[in-house]
C-alpha cells in the first residue's frame, strides 16, 4: 500500500490550519531550503525528476533554471490554481485541506528563482479554497513563515490570491498572466516565454498547485527518494481523481505509473452496478479516450502519450456500457465550444461549426457525410490553433469517433441512439 505524500495531512482535524500543519512537520522544509543556495534547490528539483502536474509535464527544475539570475530584475511566481479541466478535483483538495503545503512549496520556489512576489490564480468558483488560502497566508505571515525576513534569512515574500472570473482559458499560462494584469484573458504569443517576459513583462514561473506541493517533500526527503517513486522518466506521487461510473469515485494518491486497470478496479472499486467498462478518459476531457483493451496501460506521461492520449491532469473519467458516446462527446465538445476564448480562427470557428454538426448528429438530425465532416473539421483545427485549447477539443472528439464510429453513424442513419434507443431529443 502506497503511503500518501501530498494527501497525508488531509484527514487530520483542522488540517487547513497552520497549527495542524506545523504539528505534522510543516515549514521544516522551508527552513531547510532557506539555508541552501537557490541553485542547489533548483538542482535538487531537477534531480528529483519532478514534472509539471498541470498537464504538459514540463520538467519543473528546468523551468526554474530558465529564470535570469540578475538580482536587479523583479521576478514572479504564479501558481496556477485555475483547475478548470472537467473531471479534475486534485488541486482543490490541496487548496482546501492543506493550503500550507502549497504555500511552503511556493515559498521554496520563490526563494529558488528569486521572486519577491507570487500570485495564486484561483478559479472564482473555489470560494472556500480562496478563503482558506487567504487565511493561510495571514497565518503564515503572522508566524513569520511568509512576509518580511523569513526564518533564518533576509528573504522576503508576498503571496497574493487572485480570483478568476470563470473562464477555462485562464488555465492557459499566458492567458492567466493577462488576467492577473487586468486584461481580457487571451493567450499570448510565445516566444517570448514567460521565463523571459511574463507577468508585468518580467521573468515569471507558472506552476500547478500539485507541482508546487511536491516541492517541500523533495527538499525534506531528497531528490533520490522522489525519483525512486514510479517510472524513471515521470517519477513521484500523483493524484488521480476518479469519477464516473465506478463504485468508489474519489481522489487517490498513487505512484506515477500505476496501471489504469488497478486504479479503476482496485482503488475505485470497479464499475457500478456490475456493468462493464466502455470507455475511460485518462487525464481530463482534453485527453483522448481509451477503451477496455487499453486498460493495462501505466498512468504516466510517456505511456499515455505513446497510446495517443495524455496524462493531463490525471482526472480519470469512467463510462460504462450504458453510455452514449455521441452524447458524451457532444457534452465535452459543448464545454470547449463554450470556453474557447475566440482569439484564433480554427478554435473560434472550427469548434462552432463542429458543435452545430454534433448537435444535429446527436439529436437525430444528422446528414450523410456528417461523421466525415466532423473528422475533416477536427483535422482543420488540430495543430493550427493559437493555444492547446482547440487541440484538446478535437483530440477528444477524434478519439470518440475513431473508437466508436459505428455509434455516430448509427445516430445519423437511424435518427436515434444506438445505446438507449432514444430518438430525436428535445433540446
Amino acid at each position: 500500500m502506497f503511503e500518501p505524500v501530498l494527501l497525508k495531512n488531509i484527514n487530520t482535524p483542522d488540517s487547513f490550519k497552520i497549527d495542524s500543519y506545523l504539528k505534522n512537520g510543516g515549514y521544516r522544509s522551508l527552513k531547510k531550503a532557506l539555508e541552501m543556495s537557490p541553485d542547489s534547490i533548483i538542482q535538487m528539483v531537477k534531480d528529483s525528476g519532478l514534472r509539471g502536474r498541470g498537464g504538459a509535464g514540463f520538467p519543473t527544475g528546468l523551468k526554474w533554471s530558465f529564470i535570469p539570475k540578475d538580482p536587479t530584475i523583479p521576478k514572479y511566481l504564479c501558481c496556477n490554481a485555475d483547475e478548470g479541466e472537467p473531471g479534475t478535483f486534485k488541486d482543490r483538495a490541496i487548496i482546501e485541506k492543506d493550503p500550507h503545503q502549497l504555500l511552503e512549496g511556493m515559498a521554496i520556489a520563490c526563494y529558488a528563482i528569486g521572486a519577491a512576489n507570487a500570485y495564486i490564480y484561483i478559479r472564482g468558483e473555489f470560494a472556500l479554497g480562496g478563503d482558506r488560502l487567504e487565511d493561510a497566508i495571514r497565518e503564515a505571515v503572522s508566524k513569520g513563515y511568509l512576509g518580511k525576513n523569513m526564518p533564518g534569512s533576509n528573504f522576503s515574500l508576498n503571496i497574493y490570491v487572485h480570483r478568476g472570473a470563470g473562464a477555462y482559458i485562464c488555465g492557459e499560462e499566458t492567458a492567466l498572466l493577462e488576467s492577473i494584469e487586468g486584461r481580457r484573458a487571451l493567450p499570448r504569443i510565445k516566444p517570448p516565454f514567460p521565463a523571459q517576459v511574463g507577468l508585468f513583462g518580467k521573468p515569471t514561473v507558472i506552476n500547478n498547485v500539485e507541482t508546487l506541493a511536491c516541492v517541500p517533500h523533495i527538499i525534506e526527503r531528497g531528490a533520490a527518494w522522489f525519483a525512486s517513486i514510479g517510472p524513471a522518466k515521470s517519477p513521484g506521487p500523483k493524484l488521480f481523481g476518479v469519477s464516473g461510473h465506478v463504485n468508489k469515485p474519489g481522489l487517490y494518491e498513487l505512484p506515477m505509473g500505476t496501471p489504469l486497470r488497478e486504479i479503476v478496479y482496485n482503488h475505485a472499486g470497479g464499475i457500478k452496478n456490475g456493468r462493464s467498462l466502455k470507455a475511460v478518459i485518462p487525464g481530463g476531457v482534453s485527453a483522448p479516450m481509451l477503451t477496455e483493451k487499453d486498460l493495462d496501460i501505466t498512468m504516466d506521461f510517456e505511456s499515455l502519450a505513446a497510446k495517443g492520449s495524455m496524462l493531463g491532469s490525471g482526472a480519470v473519467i469512467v463510462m460504462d456500457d450504458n453510455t452514449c458516446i455521441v452524447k458524451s462527446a457532444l457534452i465535452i465538445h459543448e464545454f470547449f465550444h463554450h470556453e474557447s476564448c475566440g482569439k484564433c480562427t480554427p478554435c473560434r470557428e472550427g469548434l462552432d461549426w463542429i458543435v452545430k454538426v454534433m448537435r444535429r448528429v446527436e439529436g437525430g438530425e444528422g446528414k450523410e457525410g456528417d461523421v466525415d465532416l466532423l473528422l475533416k473539421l477536427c483535422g482543420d483545427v488540430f495543430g493550427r490553433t493559437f493555444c492547446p485549447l482547440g487541440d484538446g477539443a478535437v483530440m477528444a472528439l477524434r478519439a470518440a469517433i475513431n473508437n466508436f464510429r459505428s455509434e455516430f453513424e448509427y445516430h445519423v442513419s437511424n435518427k436515434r441512439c444506438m445505446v438507449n434507443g432514444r430518438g430525436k431529443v428535445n433540446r
Partner: protein
Amino acid sequence: MATVKINGKEITIDDGTLILDAAKTAGFDIPTMCFHARLSKLASCRVCLVEIVGQKKLQPSCVTPVMHGMEVLTESPVVKSARSSMIELLLANHPLDCPVCDKGGECELQDITFKFGPRQSPFGDKKRRFNEEDYILSPVIVQNANRCIQCKRCVRICAETVGVGVLGSIERGAKTGETSFVREYLDCDHCGNCIEVCPVGSLMSRSYRYKSRPWDLKGVDTVCVYCGTGCQLTVQARKDEVVRVISKPEEGINNETLCARGRYGYSFINSIDRLLVPMVRMGNTLEPTTWEDAVRAVRNGLSEAINKGKKIGGIASSRLSNEELYLFQKLMRGVLKTNNIDSGSRWDTAAVKTYAEIMELSKGGLSIYDALNTDTLLILGFGISDENPVTDYIIRRISGNKKMNIIMASPRGMKLDNSAVLSIRHNPGTEGVIIGGILKLIYDKNINSLKNLGGKDYLKDLSKEKVSDITKTAWQDIEAASGYIMASNTITVAVGSDVLRVPSRIEFLRMLIEALRILGKDVKLFPLFDRSNQRGALEMGVHPDILPGYNFIDGDGLGADGIIDAASRGEVGALYLAGEDILSDFPDGVFAREALRQTKFLVVQDIFMTESAKMANVVLPGVTFVEKDGTFTNQEGRVQRLRRLFEPHGDAKADWEIMSAIGESIDPSFNYRSASEIFDEIKKSLPLYSGIIFENLDGNGALVKGPVSSSQSSGKWAVSINLKRESADPEYPFTLITGNHLYHSGRLSLKADTLYEILHEAIVEMCGEDARKLGVSKGDKVKVKGKRHEAALTVRVNEGSMKGVVFIPENFTDVPVNMFFTKGEGYPKVKVIPLGRES
C-alpha cells in the same frame, strides 16, 4: 544576417526578419488577415501559417522570425490545405452578403478567398448573427458585426495609434463581438481609422455608405489641406462628386492613418455655397461679372492706390500652394513694389521671424521619423492632439515601441499626455519662460562649460520664484524636465505655432539649443504648424522680413498686424486678401472690420463668401485643392504634390492663374501657364528646392535640403525679453485661449457635412476643477464674457487642463473668438457665468 531557403529559393536577409517579409522578398505572397504592419502582432487568424522543415506544427509567418539555415515552405500541400481550410472557417459564419456590402470589390476576405480559398463549402448550418440590421456606432461608423472576422485591427489601431481605446471585444468564443462597450454613440476622435483597417465590411463609413463601388471611383493622390502634418490622401470621386477620402497603407508619413478632418472634411468641395463667378461691387451689392472685367477692376484699383501714394498690402492664406504663395509675393514685391505681405493674420509678425530663425527652418527639412529617433521629445506651444491629430498618432505609435521620454508642455490637457513621462501645465503664452526655467537649471549646473553662452545675462533675472510666478508651473516639473533633457543624448524640441500668437519669450529657446549643443548634445528642431502650407509660405517669403529661401531682412514692410493697423488709419489704398479672411482670423475682430472699412480698395480671392469678402470691391473665385495642381511643404519641410482631380467648379480659377492674370494686367511679362512652370522658377531662386523634380514627387514627397554647413548666428539679441507677469483681474479670472478643434480647422471644415454633424456648436473647454467650482458639467450652457464680447457656449470638461484657462475653438462662425481679443493685449481675460445664474 540569416540565410534561409524559402520554397527552395535561397535568400540572405537581416536577422529577425519575419518569415512573412522574407517570403515577400523572395517573391512569395503569403495571405494574411489579422496582420497589420504598424500594429501589435496578434497571430490569431492563422491564415499565414507556413511549414518550417523539421517542425511538427505549422507556424504563423507574421510573428515567426527567420533563423539562419531555416527552410520554409509556403506552398506545400499541407500549407495550401491549411490556408484554404482557414479561409473556409472564416467564411463559415460570415454572411457572404457581398452584393449588399460596401466592401465588395476591395474586401480582403473576398480577395484571399478568390486567390487561395475553397470554391465551395460543406457548411450548411445556421450562421451566427449578432444583428439583423446594420447599426450606427458613431457619426462616422456603421457596423455590421456579422461580417466581423475578429482580426481586432480596429481595436488595436484605436488603442495603440489613436489612443482612444473605445473599441473592444464583448463575450468570448464564437460569440465574440467587436464593438463599443456601450453600444451607443462613441465619444472618440471620429477618425475612421478603424474603418480603414477593417479588412471586411464590418465597420463601414457612414458618409460613403451605398454611394459607389470602388471600381466606379476616379481618384487622385494628393495632400490634406487641414494641418501641417501633410498626410497623403486619395480623394475619390464619382461623377465629379467627391464621395470618399482614403489613404494608402504604404504611402506618405501617415501610412493610411487620417484624422476626422482629413477623412471626412471633403464635402466643402461640393458645397452649394462655393463662389463660382467673379463679382464686382456696384454700390451696396456685389454683382457677377466676367473675369476680364474683374481683373480690369483689380488693376484699376491697385493702380489708383499706387498713383495716390497709398500703401498696398497683401495677405495670403497659408493653405495656398507653394506656387501660389511664391507668385503672390512676387506679384507684391516685384510688380507692386511692396514688402507689405504676410501669410495669415493670426500671428505676431515679429514672432514669426524669430521663430523661423530659432527653429532653423533654413537648414532644410527633418522627417518626423528622424525627429522621433530621439531620447527626449519636448513638445510645447501646440495643442497637438487637437491641432495636428495625425502627428499625435505617429508620436503615440512610435513611442509605444521604443524608449523615449515625451515631455508635453501645454496649458490644455492633451491626449498625448498619456504617452508622456511628464506633462507640464503652464499659463498661456509663457512657453519661453518654461524653456528659460529649464535653461536656468542647466546653466547653473554647467556654468563653466557655458561661460560663453550668448544672452546669458537674461538668466540673472530668472529666479525659480519668478518662473513659477509667471508660468504657474510647479518648479519640480521644470526640474524634472531639465533632468530628462540632461540625461539624454538626443533631444528633439517640437514647437508649435501657438508661440506666434502673442510674443512668448521664445528667445530663451535659442539659448537652450546653443547651451545643449555646447554640452555635446544632439538637438533636433521640429516645427508644428496648424496650416497645411505654413512652412511653404515662410519658405516662399510671404512675410515682410523674409525673402524667398529665408533671406532675412530688416525692411520697412508691414506684416498682417502692421497692414491692418495702417489700414485703420486710412493709409492703405488697396488690400489683396488671397484665401484669407481677416475678419474671422485677426485677433481683434472689431479693429479688423474698422480697418477694412477704411481700406479704399479690397480684393478678396476665396472659395466662399467670407466675412471679409462681403466687404470687398472685387471678389475672385478660387478653387479647392482637388481642382488644381501644385505643391505643399508640410511642417517637416516635405514637399508633396497636390493633384487635380477635376476641372474647377463654375468659372472659378486656380489661385495661381488668378494671380498670374492680375500680374499680367500690370506687367505683361508676368505670365505663367502651369504650376510646374512656377515650381521650376522656385527651384531656380530657392536652393532649398533645387533638387526637387515636380513630376517625380510621389507619395513620400521630398524633403527640402538646406546648405550642408549653415552657420546660425548666436548672441544677437534684437528683442528684449519681457519678464513681467500679467496682472490679474479678479473680475475676469479666466484667460481665454484659442486654436483649432479636433474636428475643425479654420472655417473650411464647417462646410463639410460630416464634421458639421460631429460638432456644430461652439464649445468652451475648461478644467474639471473650474467646472465643479462653477457648478457646471459637460453639455451645460455658460456665458463667456470678456471686456468687449460675450457669447453663450456649451461646456466641455478637460480634466487635464490648467486651472483658470478656458479654450474656445477659432472655428465657429457664430462665436467668432477673435471678437474677444483686443489688439496688443495678448490673451483676453474673461469670466464664465453659468446660464440662468447671471450676476
